[in-house]
């Protein structure tokens, strides 16, 4: 408890004199206008006339102008000795790995003059080569000035030598009691080895893994059924039919990145997969599904049992007792059985029972080895909830002498568990490895300031036979150490972690291949023949630990058998509301919360930024009288509720009505409501962990409306539907395969004096010559886009896009060059209106409302680079002009800010700098990527930072096209297709975005332009865009 001391500024304040009171009331010595203009007499006496005033004014303006003419002296300071690899102006790329305890990705980091400025996908990675939005944004967290800059003891800044000495003594004293190392899942084989070696010094050492968004139950069930407590490798690329039950595998699931594999089968054609989703919240995965069914979260188990039984019936196998079945489940079962071993059923949840039934279903389908590989395991989400519970009990009973915590913020993720905080007080020595002075750091005695991942050495073994390396790409910015370095130091050795790592790799992992090569590639795939991995022997499995080795087999058959699990699942009775916790694309579990790019990334589904909220179905909202409404300035507001769940209360939670939310269910995202993450994240949203108890979905939650006040959202898209227009062209697979493209992808024709002409041929003006040289075009495949938002962050990072903050976002002054529009289908259509004779006003009224269970489409929209651009013709100063390469150029220094262009743009992709967003820390300090010296290191030096009052928009990464062309010119060879990738294209691991030169007939983009799915957005306007889309095809059975 902090003391509430009162500080006074001087003795006058203490004695509370009259002068002090006056001074306080008028702090800035302001004089009212009345005071100096009201006195007519004095005014008439004054010798200053209006003419004089104008003279002074003119003089000072002229003087200021003249003073500005003097050019400042600019210093140019070269290196004293240039590092070998640095040529100023040319980026270097390093392969490394990102892992923060939750997200893992194999990445390439782009550095300029030694500063990491961008994260890119490592296309050579065997697993998780496609980084998500958070990983793409993680480079900014390196430059967070609120990072810990030196270690701390008892909350005071300390020196490493003091910490080493004091802690060494305490750790030695703790020996005898339990010494516990608490981490999230450790992916690194070398770190595991080191922790083990460190533990060997203590008589009673334990390593406990715990994940914030745990899949412990799932792993327990897998361990019981398949013998090893590790996730199988899911192979969506082999799946003809996929049924997901509450599994958001395209958003955030078990750690394995499956979106690229999934997308490889989503291209329309005979091999397109079929995807059916059962879920309560509207997730990214549900949005991409061919068919989405709403179920209550508490019905997940019963639905799975029902599915099991339907499949069993078709296959003639034994059924499980109970289970809910209906036509939807029956249909899904039929399709699964038809696909046989090429079917895949996946479930979410932390429940062992749900996984036990899921395993049983997959076994029935016989897909082991094809779509699920139980022999090649992945090692994400290894956390063990039961071990954590045991640890908290031990802490409270005073058995724990020392607790070391790494890569986990338990005080935050266990916010609802009061026992943890109490237990911490009873632990003798608490050590915390952290980059931030966060919630846990405030409870720990020793806080070891940790390197950022971009400053650290490390490795990872995400799956059997697949390894990756992490290498520092910048020298540590602060007086920090990486966790492994601390352990080695405390073990008394002189070896640094780099030597330890290389030694472990050379002896254990590489098996004779070269370290340099592995480091260069960032990934290393161990072939089975040479797999001589000297790993530490497996710890006894979960069952063995709980029940002892002999009983393990028996327990396997009983406690975690599908029948026992099914029995428990069908007995769950929904009560009040079901509450499903979920992870947002931008926030995940909240590890990188203090990142303005991520906070401002619109949620792909709700399009809300800077917030979390309770999602509720329209029907429930109507019953409870909960509303969302829009202000006259276009801002979204909503009611607030008090949420009671797990016996705990969360107050003033905003409510957002979510189409597609199952009735009787609520959704709440974790990762918000921070207190110790830093100025960006603190106070944004509510902390869902406070009412979460490890399980991902609970029943029996209640809400009550807060009558006082309302919540202000910052929502970037208020229009939910397309209002019957062809913004996203969509068709079914059947129509695509058998129908006439002229019908399902209708082209516009205009009546002219030359006869009907297509939009491409109808011109008011002379054509540009687009046959000579390059003609840049971009194709966006709406079938492959799952809305994940990685491209938006990549664009942010590449193009120095400013963050505007919640207030500005609220009134739609967002600056994203690339946005991903989300549209819901509506029950009302043109055809239906005609059939039923609905009037025009009613029709449009109803069209505005999305269906209760809508189909969802995502559409990335950036500047369409029109070849007849409406913006170009209205610019009074020719600041936006057309290029011979098909791009629409925007010249910032020429722009005077009339905003005519934005008004005339049919796509609404132009962004206006309403304020000075950079170097304006007073107002936009939250956007530290532009407003403090450290943050500004992340800026891309090849792209101008725009000033106030100018228009900006997507340039199609012109800095990249120019650089790509130059590279070809320097080599003296023709430009190869694929040599230039835009930032959004590079970030898209599903390959939805393809950029290239359509004048090169061998290019991928040329082929895509000839595709029968190709259409231009708002083609009828006649803008002839350089960006085109591929029709969305849904595999409707």
């Amino acid at each position, binding site marked *: 408890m902090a003391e509430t001391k009162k500080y006074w500024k001087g003795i006058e304040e203490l004695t509370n004199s009259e002068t002090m009171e006056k001074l306080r009331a008028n702090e800035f010595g302001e004089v009212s206008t009345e005071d100096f203009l009201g006195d007519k007499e004095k005014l008439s006496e004054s010798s200053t006339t209006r003419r004089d005033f104008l003279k002074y004014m003119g003089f000072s303006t002229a003087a200021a102008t003249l003073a500005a003419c003097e050019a400042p002296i600019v*210093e140019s300071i*070269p290196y004293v000795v240039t590092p070998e690899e640095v040529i100023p*102006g040319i980026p270097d790329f390093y392969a490394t790995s990102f892992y923060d305890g939750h997200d893992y990705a194999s990445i390439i980091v782009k550095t300029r003059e030694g500063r990491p400025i961008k994260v890119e996908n490592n296309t050579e990675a065997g697993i998780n080569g496609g980084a998500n939005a958070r990983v793409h944004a993680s480079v900014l967290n390196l430059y967070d000035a609120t990072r810990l800059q030196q270690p701390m003891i008892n909350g005071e800044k300390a020196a490493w030598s003091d910490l080493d000495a004091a802690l060494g003594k305490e750790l030695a004293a703790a020996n005898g009691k339990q010494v516990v190392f608490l981490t999230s899942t450790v992916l690194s084989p070398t770190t595991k080895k080191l922790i083990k070696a460190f533990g060997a010094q203590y008589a009673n050492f334990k390593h406990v893994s715990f994940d914030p968004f745990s899949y412990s139950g799932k792993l327990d069930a897998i361990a019981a059924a398949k013998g090893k407590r590790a996730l199988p490798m899911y192979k969506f690329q082999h799946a003809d039919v996929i049924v997901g039950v509450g599994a958001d595998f395209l958003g955030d699931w078990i750690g394995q990145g499956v979106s690229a594999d999934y997308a490889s089968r989503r291209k329309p054609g005979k091999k397109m997969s079929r995807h059916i989703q059962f879920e309560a919240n509207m997730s990214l995965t549900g949005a991409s599904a061919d068919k989405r069914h709403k179920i209550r979260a508490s019905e997940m188990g019963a639905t799975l049992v029902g599915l099991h039984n339907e499949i069993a019936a078709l296959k003639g196998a034994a059924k499980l007792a109970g289970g809910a079945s209906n036509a939807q489940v029956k249909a899904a079962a039929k399709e699964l059985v038809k696909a046989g071993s090429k079917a895949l059923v996946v479930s979410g949840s932390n429940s062992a029972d749900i996984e036990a039934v899921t395993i049983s279903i997959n076994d029935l389908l016989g897909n082991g080895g094809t779509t699920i590989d139980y022999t090649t395991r992945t090692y994400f989400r290894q956390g063990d909830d039961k071990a954590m519970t045991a640890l908290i009990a031990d802490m409270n009973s005073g058995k724990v002498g020392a607790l070391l915590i790494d890569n986990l913020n338990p005080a935050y993720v266990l916010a609802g568990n009061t026992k943890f905080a109490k237990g911490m007080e009873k632990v003798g020595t608490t050590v915390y490895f952290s980059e931030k002075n966060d919630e846990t750091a405030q409870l720990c005695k020793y806080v070891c300031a940790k390197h950022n991942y971009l400053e650290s050495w490390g490795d990872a073994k995400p799956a059997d036979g697949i390894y990756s390396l992490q290498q520092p790409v910048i020298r540590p910015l602060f007086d920090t150490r990486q966790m492994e370095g601390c352990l080695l130091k405390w073990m008394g050795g002189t070896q640094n972690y780099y030597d330890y790592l290389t030694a472990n790799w050379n002896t254990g992992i590489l098996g004779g291949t070269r370290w340099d090569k592995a480091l260069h590639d960032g990934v290393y795939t161990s072939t089975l023949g040479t797999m001589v991995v000297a790993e530490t022997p497996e710890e006894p499995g979960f069952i063995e630990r709980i029940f002892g080795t002999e009983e393990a087999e028996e327990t396997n058959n009983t406690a975690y058998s599908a029948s026992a699990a099914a029995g428990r699942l069908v007995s769950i009775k929904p009560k009040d509301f079901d509450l499903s916790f979920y992870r947002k694309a931008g926030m995940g579990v909240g590890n990188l919360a203090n990142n303005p790019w991520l906070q401002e990334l619109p949620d792909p589904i709700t399009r809300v930024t800077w917030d979390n909220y309770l999602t509720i179905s329209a029907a429930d909202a109507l019953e409870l009288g909960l509303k969302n409404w829009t202000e006259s300035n276009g801002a979204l507001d909503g009611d607030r509720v008090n949420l009671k769940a797990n016996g705990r209360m969360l107050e003033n939670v905003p409510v957002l009505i979510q189409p597609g939310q199952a009735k009787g269910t609520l959704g709440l995202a974790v990762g918000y409501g921070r207190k110790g993450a830093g100025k960006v994240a603190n106070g944004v949203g509510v902390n869902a962990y406070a009412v979460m108890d490890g399980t991902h979905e609970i029943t029996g939650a209640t809400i009550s409306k807060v009558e006082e006040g309302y919540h202000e959202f910052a929502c970037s898209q208020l229009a939910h539907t397309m209002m019957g227009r062809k913004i996203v062209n969509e068709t079914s697979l059947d129509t695509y395969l058998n129908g006439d493209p002229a019908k399902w992808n209708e082209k516009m024709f205009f009546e002219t004096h030359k006869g009907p002409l297509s939009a491409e041929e109808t011109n008011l003006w002379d054509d540009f010559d687009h046959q000579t040289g390059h003609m840049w075009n971009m194709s966006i495949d709406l079938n492959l886009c799952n809305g994940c938002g990685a491209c938006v962050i990549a664009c942010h990072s590449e193009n120095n896009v400013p963050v505007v903050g919640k207030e500005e976002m609220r009134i739609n002054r967002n600056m994203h060059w690339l946005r991903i529009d989300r549209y819901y289908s509506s029950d009302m259509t043109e055809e239906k209106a005609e059939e039923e004779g609905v009037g025009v006003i009613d029709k449009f009224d109803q069209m505005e409302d999305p269906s209760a269970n809508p189909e969802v489409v995502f559409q990335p929209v950036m500047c369409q680079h029109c070849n007849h651009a409406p913006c170009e013709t209205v610019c009074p100063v020719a600041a936006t*002009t057309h*290029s011979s390469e098909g791009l629409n150029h925007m010249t910032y220094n020429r722009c005077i800010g009339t905003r005519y262009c934005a008004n005339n743009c049919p796509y609404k992709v132009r962004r206006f700098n309403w304020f000075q967003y950079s170097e304006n820390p007073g107002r936009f300090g939250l956007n530290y990527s532009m407003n403090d010296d450290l943050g500004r290191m992340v800026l891309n030096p090849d792209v101008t930072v725009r000033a106030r009052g100018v228009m900006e928009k997507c340039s199609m990464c012109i800095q990249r096209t*120019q650089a790509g062309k130059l590279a070809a*010119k320097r080599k*003296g060879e023709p*430009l190869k297709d694929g040599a230039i990738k835009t930032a959004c294209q590079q970030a898209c691991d599903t390959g939805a975005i393809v950029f290239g030169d359509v004048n090169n007939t061998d290019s991928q983009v040329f082929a895509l332009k000839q595709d029968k799915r190709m259409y231009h957005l708002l083609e009828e306007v006649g803008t002839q865009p350089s960006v085109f889309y591929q029709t969305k095809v849904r595999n409707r059975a």
Partner: protein
Amino acid sequence: MKNRFIQRYSKALIVFLFSVLSTLAYGQEISGDAANGKTLFNANCASCHKLDKKAIGPALGDVTERRSTEWLVKWIVNNAELRASGDEEAIAIFEEYNGSVMPAFPGLSEQDVMDILVYTVEGQKKAAPEEAGTGAVAGGEPVEPDNTVPLLILGAILAFLVYLLVTVKNTLKRVQGQPTTSLAEDANIITRTALKNPKIVTLLTILIAIVFFQQLYIALMSVGISEKYQPSQPIKFSHELHAGQNQIDCNYCHYGARKGKHSNIPSAGVCMNCHMQVQEGPKYGTEEIAKIYAAVGWDPETYQYIEGYEQKPIKWIRIHNLPDLAYFNHSQHVTAGQIACQTCHGPIQEMEEVYQYSSLTMGWCVNCHRETQVQVKSNDYYTEMHEKLKEKYGEDAQITVEMIGGLECGKCHY
């Protein structure tokens, strides 16, 4: 037979000569051509030896006094052989210089060696007065031709002529019996008459206005243009010496210009490639070069980097300041465009102190883009484009940067 005899004879003669010379070694009885010696010294020895002080190898100014000529010849022609023969002196000197290997010079004849040795003696003698000479000149800036005196003389002549004219006029008037007027009175009358004439007044007003507005225009158009900007740099580095006299390729120091956006200012480490040996310049002596050593922490005495030295980067003053809103890439122009550095930077090889040669205005850029031809023929990148351009502009058309989109805003502004 005769040849062999002569050979043998000459050998014997040389041996004899040497033995005679060796007795006189410390007495400086060597003769040769000092001029040839200087050429040979500069070509073969100067990279490691100086006359007056230690460099990589010992100072050679007084070497003839320290060593016997015979020994010197053996050492210079093949020092390894001499060391191998077990010569103690040779081994001692080799070890004194940390085993730095001096190459063998089998190409040098005995007379060449003599010439060099003569030069070491003569050169050392000359060095002293030369130094005094340079000291006097040093610091003298290149003097601009001073026009004050001739102008003053001209002015005086003019004033004298006016005086003469007035005197003549007044004399004539006196002769005619008219009243004389002074020069001031004359001027007064003429001005008054002129100002009363509205035509003249109008003309004058227009003239003054034209001059005023023209000057104003020139002044305003030069705002922000730093042509001829010539700041003084922290080190008096002479491009005239390095690029002009020594013919060092621009890309040796500014290696980034070929590869990337920046033509980088070389790091002090690059300077050290040469200045590890060249410790003295012709103009400022050791003073300026010492600044490089201060930056990198090099001790010219011990020929070593100082351990644990805190390196101080050299803060050059940037001359060419393009605003951030314009993207300029050197390699685009130097490598792809094959433009010589001098096109934009002027006669850099003649500049003692660099100044901004070009205006760096957008008009200047655009003009060049209109006129400069693209390397369409020698660069395969352009091959396909060139075919299309030929269709458009004709078979023999000169393809300028403008024709391939070099004037489009977004090519430089993004």
